[in-house]
């Protein structure tokens, strides 16, 4: 029940502080622009493969905007409470650490889902003039949801390490970009190493979804990554207690 209380409070805070509105607006404007240019491109040059190609491009573009915007949503989750000292209230009230983490995670996830839901407007508009196939679209959105959920888990962990929001945001972008490029360096890493890195890459697992393929191993990858980061967050709260710092 405390999870729900914290989630409600965080959501209110997202919307009263306008952060949610600003991030959602920017996301919709930029992804709408990408959708438009991709559509124009496909109509002018490719024509036939709109069904798959258009979505693949658009999802890849949205992934990029998420990389830049989600850290702005997650940066405040713990850093702000530490700065204000309100974390002391949470720790000294009868709330379990796991409830704090879960409440905060779910609130951010809710904002992200709202954001993603609003982009469904694009396929709906397209449907008016061109028949849209549900399957690949659904796969893509599941991919985006899992990817975003992983970004948030990573962001919340980094926010729990610092009391400076800017540092939290920048470090999150840094870590996410690192996960993106992790399998690029074939020159240095051997072929087998690249194969391993390939499987660790946040974005490699996303590609299947954009092609309309839902592979259970990709889902397992994202879910375990989310669990890993949330577990790290819990550990970081625990370590803080023993070290005696905020």
């Amino acid at each position, binding site marked *: *029940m*405390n999870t729900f*209380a*914290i989630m*409600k*409070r965080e959501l*209110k*805070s997202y919307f*009263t*502080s306008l952060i949610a509105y600003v991030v959602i607006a920017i996301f919709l404007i930029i992804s709408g622009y990408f959708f438009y240019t991709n559509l124009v491109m496909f109509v002018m040059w490719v024509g036939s493969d709109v069904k798959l190609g258009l979505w693949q491009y658009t999802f890849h573009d949205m992934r990029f905007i998420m990389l830049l915007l989600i850290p702005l949503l997650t940066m405040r989750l713990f850093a702000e409470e530490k700065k*204000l*000292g*309100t*974390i*002391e*209230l949470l*720790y*000294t*009230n*009868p*709330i*379990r650490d796991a409830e704090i983490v879960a409440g905060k995670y779910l609130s951010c996830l809710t904002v992200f889902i709202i954001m993603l839901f609003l982009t469904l407007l694009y396929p709906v508009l397209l449907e008016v003039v061109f028949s849209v196939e549900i399957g690949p679209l659904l796969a893509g959105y599941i991919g985006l949801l899992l990817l975003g959920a992983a970004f948030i888990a990573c962001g919340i962990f980094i926010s729990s390490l610092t009391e400076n929001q800017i540092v939290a945001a920048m470090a999150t972008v840094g870590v996410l970009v690192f996960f993106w490029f992790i399998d690029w360096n074939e020159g240095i890493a051997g072929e087998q190493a690249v194969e391993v890195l390939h499987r660790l890459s946040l974005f490699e697992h996303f590609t299947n979804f954009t092609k309309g393929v839902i592979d259970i191993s990709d889902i397992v990858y994202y879910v375990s990554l989310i669990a890993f980061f949330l577990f790290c967050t819990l550990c970081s709260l625990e370590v803080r*207690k*023993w*070290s*005696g*710092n905020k």
Partner: protein
Amino acid sequence: MNAIEVEHLTKFYGPARGVEDISFNVKAGEIMGFLGPNGSGKTTTMRILTCFFPPTSGTARICGHNILTDSLAVRQKTGYLPESVPLYLDMPVFSYLRFFAEVKGITTKSRKGKVDEVIGACGLDSVAHRLIGKLSKGYRQRVGIAQSLLNDPEVLILDEPTIGLDPKQIIEIRNLIRGLGSKRTVILSTHILPEVSMTCDRVIIIHKGRLVAVDTPANLIKRLQQTPRIIVKAGGPSEKIKDALGSLPGVVAVTQKQSGSQGLHSFQVETQEGVHLINSIARTIDNHNWTLQEVRPVDMTLEDIFIHLVTEEEGADTT
């Protein structure tokens, strides 16, 4: 019955000592004052008792629940006002309190009634729907106290509850705490001595992380006021004034503090216990036609208590 039992509590921040080997008990319904200069370990002790962080060694029980093994139950039974009064500044008072009521496990049905009750008790009615960020320091303090009262805590831990308040608010908060004391156990920290004698049943004095004394305020003051002192400010020839004061019956010693401006001098007169010399000092100065600006007994300050108790303790250590 003891509401709070503290046994050999020690907390180190890395190599730095927070508190060391602190033990004391607080009886149910008692108001316990926590006295100490800045950095003496008051906040550290309170944070351990409220389960904000665990001690390095030692343990404590609140209402029979161990703070280490039964932390959730301890937190359920305590109310805590942290020193910095952290608040969610972007929330209105009412929603803020409702959030903490929910977190403290107050049922949906009784939640609104409970919130209204603490709003009334802390005099927050006029600001209940304003944003906390827009409130003055005094009101924020009250919101903090209101938060700590929501779950009818058996043990209330208040870290400097009257700091930053105006005199009228201080009196109101003291009365509020006094009123709570009959039903609950209260620990409050402060560095204002009169506050302790006004509100607390017993006092704990800590210094540099160590327990120096646990006693009632009256006993502490009795123990310390062995040589009453009087401050005299007068104008005239300083040596003659000093001699005249020194020759009064009952005076132990006279020391000149400093020569002030306009020919005024300031003296500290130490007297024997139970002798009241204010009148005879005034008369002496008047008889010599010197200017009398001030005669007053020296109040016991926290500083005096510390100098006294700490030197006492250090003396005991060396012998």
